[in-house]
């Protein structure tokens, strides 16, 4: 435990890293070990890692000083800095992108596709969504009006915030204009569309991969017909009770680690991260804007 009365500017003698794996990716994360091992060595103090799947828990832990380093999804990055003054230092890069799109899927391509679906890697796309980056095909989402839509909880960027923002921008009243079928995981959104519980579903691109493991036909039955605007990737926030030097040290250590070949390999292997890039605070404004527009009042 930290020695509280060692002086006002004293940094804790050990750190806790809270890793909230992005739900918006295809792989399973159950350890923070490579990161904490590396940080322990680089900082010369023990760093404990905790994988938390609850957004609120991680942010509150940072707020209460129980965790100092947070690997958080975009909305929570913004909330941590907004509520508890944490500073966002790094953002993750996947396949060279620091952003990713949300996808609109349907089991009724005849209604939503302007062109005939094309196949890529065993999955169908239409309306130019096969470019695999957003935005694409957003003209077609007006047709969603009145349909049943499978969506995630309001904390999910790809499963809720960005697609809903797109619907709003397309002139649809998101409270009354669609019939929400709530789900809380990306695979469930895909399945809801596949099973016909909803005509349209939101998820990250491309959540169909998860489901195809035991339901292979999902790539053909569920067609992606639009991609949202690009969503900022998750990133790293540090609490404001750490001294500037320590913050600096942590940021550098992480960035350098991802630059080494072995570091990059480990990050890709475990978190599908190819690089940790300096944060672009502006990219979070979009999240903040969306969250305030859509927040529950």
């Amino acid at each position, binding site marked *: 435990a930290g020695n509280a009365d060692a002086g006002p500017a004293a940094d804790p003698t050990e750190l806790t890293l809270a890793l909230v794996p992005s739900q918006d990716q295809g792989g*399973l994360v*159950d350890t923070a070990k490579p990161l904490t091992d590396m940080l322990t060595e680089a900082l010369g103090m023990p760093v404990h890692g905790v994988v*938390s799947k609850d957004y609120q*828990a*991680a942010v509150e832990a940072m707020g*209460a000083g*129980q*965790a100092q380093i947070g690997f958080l999804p975009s909305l929570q990055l913004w909330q941590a800095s907004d509520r508890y003054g944490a500073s966002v230092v790094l953002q993750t890069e996947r396949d060279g992108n620091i952003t990713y799109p949300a996808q609109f899927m349907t089991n009724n391509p005849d209604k939503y596709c302007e062109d005939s679906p094309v196949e890529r890697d065993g999955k169908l796309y239409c309306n130019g969504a096969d470019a695999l980056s957003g935005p694409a095909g957003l003209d077609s989402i007006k047709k969603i009006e009145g349909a049943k839509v499978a969506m995630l909880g309001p904390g999910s960027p790809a499963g809720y915030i960005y697609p809903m923002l797109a619907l709003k921008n397309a002139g649809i009243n998101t409270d009354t204009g669609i019939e929400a079928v709530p789900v809380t995981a990306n695979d469930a959104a895909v399945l809801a569309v596949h099973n016909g519980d909803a005509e349209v579903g939101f998820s990250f691109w491309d959540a169909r991969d998860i489901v195809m493991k*035991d339901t292979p036909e999902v790539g053909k039955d569920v067609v992606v017909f639009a991609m949202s605007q690009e969503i900022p990737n998750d990133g790293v926030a540090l609490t404001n009770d750490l001294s500037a030097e320590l913050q600096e040290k942590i940021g550098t250590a992480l960035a350098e680690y991802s630059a080494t070949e072995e570091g990059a390999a480990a990050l890709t292997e475990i978190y599908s991260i190819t690089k940790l890039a300096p944060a672009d605070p502006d990219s979070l404004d979009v999240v903040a804007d969306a969250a305030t527009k859509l927040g529950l009042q």
Partner: protein
Amino acid sequence: MSLHNPTRNTATAAQAPQAPAPVPPAKPVPWRPLAAVLAVAVIAVASFWSVEITWSRLLGLPADIVRYLWLMFSNPNWDKLGEALAQTWRSVQMAWVGTVLGLLISFPLSFLAARGFAPAPVRGLLRMAFALIRAVPEIVIAIIILSVTGLTPLTGALALAVNSIGTLGKWGYESIEGVDPGPLEAVRAAGGSTSQVIRWGVWPSAMPEFASFWLYRFEINVRASAVLGLIGVGGVGDMLTSYTQYREWSTVGVLILVVIAVTMGIDAVSGAIRRRLTDGGKPQ
């Protein structure tokens, strides 16, 4: 005295013709139970009628069950067994500490919440507290505690302890109130004080029930770690949800086997203890 009376066949055969039928009292109409049954029926019908369910989905269920059982158990991923056991041990630790803390706190409180052992205001307050604990979602309790003790297994144990107090307290005062009043009266008649009445009048008869629901709560706590796993304090529940979410069925199968083994183990121990306490462990 007629030992053998060949003309008599049965009670009715000879009696029915001449004797007038006895007049039973008017059958009382059980208004209260009838009203209760009616209310339940109305609520049930309303629920079934208003809920939006495609019942036809149930038709495919048996085939689906077979398919998923196959996915889980045809080729279990034994590589994960070690980790599963380690996480189970962690769950058991949290559950154990949570149960022990919970029972230490709830045990005296449940006496204060039982009719006849404390003033009515104390009783009302405690029952309200038990109800409140049960009303707050586990994860919210966990987050409050997390701001005190951080993302550690201790948080998990404390959250389980707080949760346990709500249920154990309720079960406790219910079974205390259900105790046979006889022995309790005997202690009172011998000049026993309230604490002595509890020790020698209530405890001997309530003990098996207490032991059985303490063990049951332990079992619940092992499983409840699924929710706590979400906040990152670990445990087998966390693994279960993650692997299910990413549809790694072969691993899920292994995890289920581990959980079943643990639960059955607890159940066997609890059964043995219960038998010992209720009938002195005599052979069946």
